């Protein structure tokens, strides 16, 4: 684990092979004055040309942790351990996974195996903990509509933290405790795939230490990138048209059954 005391950090997750969005996110984080940049894992999956993301992360000195996808690709497991339950979701997840495993070089797979599982830092006097799915399990889904406040309090207590930031679901949200707004949980969303809201942008978070009662101010930032160019590359790589459609429309077409009723009702498909 890394112990740091910066004033502003950028946090993103779920690169999903989207190297164009990764470049754009790193540019924006730099422009916003982030002193450190954290990646909460899942470098592969969904998008094209897996090996293109690795040098971007390493050259920018991004502090990267292991997601379930990285664990699977690093160790060459049979599937991504994403935790889908629906046959159609698993069908498409397997296409992404087989493609990513085949196209990730051995040195990059070896690097994935070295990644840490968590980061901890102090920001604005608050204890901040980063994890991939949750602080309990690498592939736990934390959605806005099914992560209630009493449960967040329990996670914070068990993780010895004031603020937890995670990814894994692909939809960003933040919930602060009513009794202590300086504490809460943040899902930074994903930069590899739009947030299933009909907008093609992707999302990451800027965390800034403040002197105020919040301790840490969170800004969820949309990132626009050349998604048309990514779609062209995905088609060249023979990836499913369903994935391309998501990049071009901002609506998920696969891996939908895992969504809670509330988030599913807001979906197009």
């Amino acid at each position, binding site marked *: 684990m890394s112990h740091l005391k910066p004033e502003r950090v950028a946090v993103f997750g779920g690169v999903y092979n989207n190297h164009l969005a990764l470049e754009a996110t790193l540019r924006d984080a730099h422009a916003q004055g982030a002193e450190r940049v954290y990646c909460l894992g899942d470098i592969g999956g969904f998008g094209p040309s897996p090996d293109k993301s690795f040098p971007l992360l390493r050259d920018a000195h991004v502090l990267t942790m292991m997601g379930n996808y990285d664990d699977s690709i690093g160790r060459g497991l049979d599937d991504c351990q994403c935790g889908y339950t629906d046959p159609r979701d698993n069908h498409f997840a397997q296409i992404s996974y087989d493609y990513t495993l085949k196209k990730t070089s051995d040195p990059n797979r070896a690097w994935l195996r070295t990644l840490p599982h968590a980061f901890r830092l102090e920001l604005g006097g608050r204890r901040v903990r980063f994890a991939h799915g949750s602080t309990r*399990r690498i592939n736990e889904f934390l959605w806005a509509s099914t992560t209630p406040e*009493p*449960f967040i309090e329990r*996670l914070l207590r068990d993780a010895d933290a004031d603020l937890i930031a995670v990814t894994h679901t692909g939809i960003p949200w933040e919930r602060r405790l009513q009794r202590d707004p300086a504490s809460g949980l943040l899902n930074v969303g994903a930069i590899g795939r739009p947030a299933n809201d009909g907008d093609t942008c992707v999302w990451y978070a800027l965390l800034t230490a403040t002197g105020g009662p919040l301790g840490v101010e969170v800004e969820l930032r949309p990132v626009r990138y050349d998604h048309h160019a990514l779609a062209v590359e995905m088609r060249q790589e023979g990836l499913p048209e369903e994935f391309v459609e998501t990049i071009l429309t901002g609506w998920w077409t696969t891996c939908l059954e895992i969504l*809670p*009723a*509330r988030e599913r009702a807001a979906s197009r498909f």
Partner: protein
Amino acid sequence: MSQDLVDLAARANAPTLPFAGLDTLWLQVTGTLCNIACRHCFITCGPKNDSHPMMAREHVLDTLDVARRLGVREYYFTGGEPFMHPHIFDLIDATLQQGPLSILTNGILITEDVAQRLGDLFRRGPYSLDLRVSLDGTTPEENDPIRGKNTFHQILAGGERLLRAGINPVWTVTTVHAAFDDRSEGYARFRSLLEARGFTRPRLKFIPPFLIGREARRSQGYAADDLLQEGDLFEGEEHVLQCGSCRTVTARGVYPCPILIEAQDARMGDHLEGALHPIRLDHPACATCHQEGFSCRT
């Protein structure tokens, strides 16, 4: 050795499942009282069975207080038929104030008014509200011998009212018919039925039959050697099996899961706080969950 002693010895060798913390709380709000008496019910719910009576409103609210302190993540209402409870909307409202809720129903009591009220709660509640409607065939000929005369059309009508109110329910299918043993065939047939009824995004959950309760009479029950033994569990199975992170509260006390509320010796006491410990998987129904990788979660 007598068969009883053989059974005792086999149960004594059952594996212990670690307890990962109370994530999920099941509330048997109407106990074993139901408006229908399905032939495959793994408890013996029906209009006359009050072996587990309805939970008093205050009992549910007190249990919710405890659950909030324990940091429970999600709630389920089941029975029996939850919509028989006279205070059901109070209970739904109170639960949704502190977490997401799934309600398991046979759909028959979902009137237009009930559906509209649920639709309002779905839209304005702070957390997700999900409805699970049980249906056991794609025709009356398949469903009605299991769930009761004319239930096929009544159940579908209840689901359609929910859909009109803005709620897309999860259709729960117990795989009592050989035709649904092949899940992809089962999914295809139910999708086709539901899409024709206007469910453009049908949600489905398949459940294996548990050979206890009324289903034991239909299926002859479990064999004497259908028990898990030490060494059968895989590492981390407490995160797959629901009983690794859930408990069920009925009017009569606390149980490990919603399946075993009529099982001998399954009762864990009066209070939730006293039931948060590892359990031995010494009931044959436990083998069904283990073998099927089954979780009662939506």
